[in-house]
């Protein structure tokens, strides 16, 4: 079912006389998103940026930017944060991940913020591999396989990655007011893949301490717990939703496609890293 996003007028963020039932915070403890109940519905608050009202069924979203916050900022928050959460309310599987197209199918890169998902995704995209998403990976069960749905056609990069990978000539979207990252639009340098592809591999990115590119097959239980950590889930207190999500993930990890991937984080090594990943993804899976 399509989700309808209705932008509302700017308004200051009123005080809420209840504690959030869930919260996302940055590594330094700064709150990023607060999750509140609003009757049967939800209110997602991005402090000093915007409020989003999400209907109980996840089909309707209404946004209210704080005065002075740009339309582009609200739209980007919607696409990257709120839409995946609303999709999760409909029972869809959405993960924090980048994904690219290969001849073998879609390859996804998951990992905590700062592990290099977007840089690796952009690296592939600048080398001729179309990208499906740089942040919100929507996975759907099809007849006998799982498909990765394309997300929106831009990639966010820190300035050093932007300069190393795409240079200054890339088309940029208007800046958003919560991150200094540049948002690079798809085009000749970064080609977007607008069609769904079968999921071939999921790589969980390590911390960059490896001396060379390394792959390690994950067991199903390791993969499941790692998928949970990277999943968008709007209502973590709703036991029925949690149980259904658990069942979906239990089926998803039956595929032998999950690996830990680590490599030294050096721009000059990325071509070799890409080559190793493509060769690895083309091979049949190893025993766990």
């Amino acid at each position: 079912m399509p989700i309808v996003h209705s932008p509302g007028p700017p308004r200051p963020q009123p005080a809420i006389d209840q504690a959030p039932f869930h919260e996302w915070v940055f590594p330094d403890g700064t709150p990023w998103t607060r999750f509140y109940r609003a009757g049967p519905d939800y209110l997602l608050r991005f402090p000093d940026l915007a409020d989003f009202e999400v209907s109980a069924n996840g089909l309707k979203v209404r946004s209210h930017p704080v005065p002075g916050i740009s339309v582009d900022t609200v739209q980007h928050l919607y696409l990257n944060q709120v839409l995946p959460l609303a999709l999760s309310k409909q029972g869809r599987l959405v993960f924090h991940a980048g994904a690219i197209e290969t001849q073998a199918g879609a390859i996804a890169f998951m990992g905590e913020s700062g592990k290099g998902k977007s840089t690796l995704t952009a690296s592939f995209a600048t080398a001729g591999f179309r990208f499906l998403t740089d942040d919100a990976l929507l996975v759907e069960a099809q007849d006998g396989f799982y498909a990765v749905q394309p997300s929106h056609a831009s990639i966010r990069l820190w300035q050093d990655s932007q300069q190393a990978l795409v240079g200054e000539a890339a088309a940029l979207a208007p800046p958003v007011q919560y991150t200094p990252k540049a948002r690079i639009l798809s085009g000749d340098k970064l080609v977007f893949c607008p069609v769904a592809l079968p999921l071939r591999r999921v790589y969980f990115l390590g911390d960059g301490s490896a001396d060379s590119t390394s792959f390690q097959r994950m067991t199903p239980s390791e993969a499941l717990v790692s998928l949970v950590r990277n999943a968008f889930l709007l209502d973590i207190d709703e036991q029925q939703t949690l149980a259904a999500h658990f069942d979906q993930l239990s089926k998803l990890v039956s595929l032998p496609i999950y690996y830990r991937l680590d490599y030294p984080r050096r721009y000059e090594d990325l071509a070799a890293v890409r080559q190793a990943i493509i060769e690895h993804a083309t091979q049949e899976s190893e025993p766990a």
Partner: protein
Amino acid sequence: MNLTDKPTIPAQVMARQVGDETVILDLGSGTYFGLDPVGARIWQLIGEGKTLGEICDTMLDEYDVTREALEHDVMELVARLLEQKLVSIE
């Protein structure tokens, strides 16, 4: 904790077998916990209502291990499950 104790699985805890492993989810806290094949077998025997001693008796017939080592492993896992509130002991 001793070998006559019988762990029980709270109603809000669910588990699914994935391959030869098991993943446990506590719906109340949202905690996930992965078990390797040996841990999965212990979990299965807990689910059958066996005491810790009965679990060890059963597994001694199934694994090439000394009773001492097995009791240590069973006790250690159940202690971790208790800590995570994934099982309880009356």
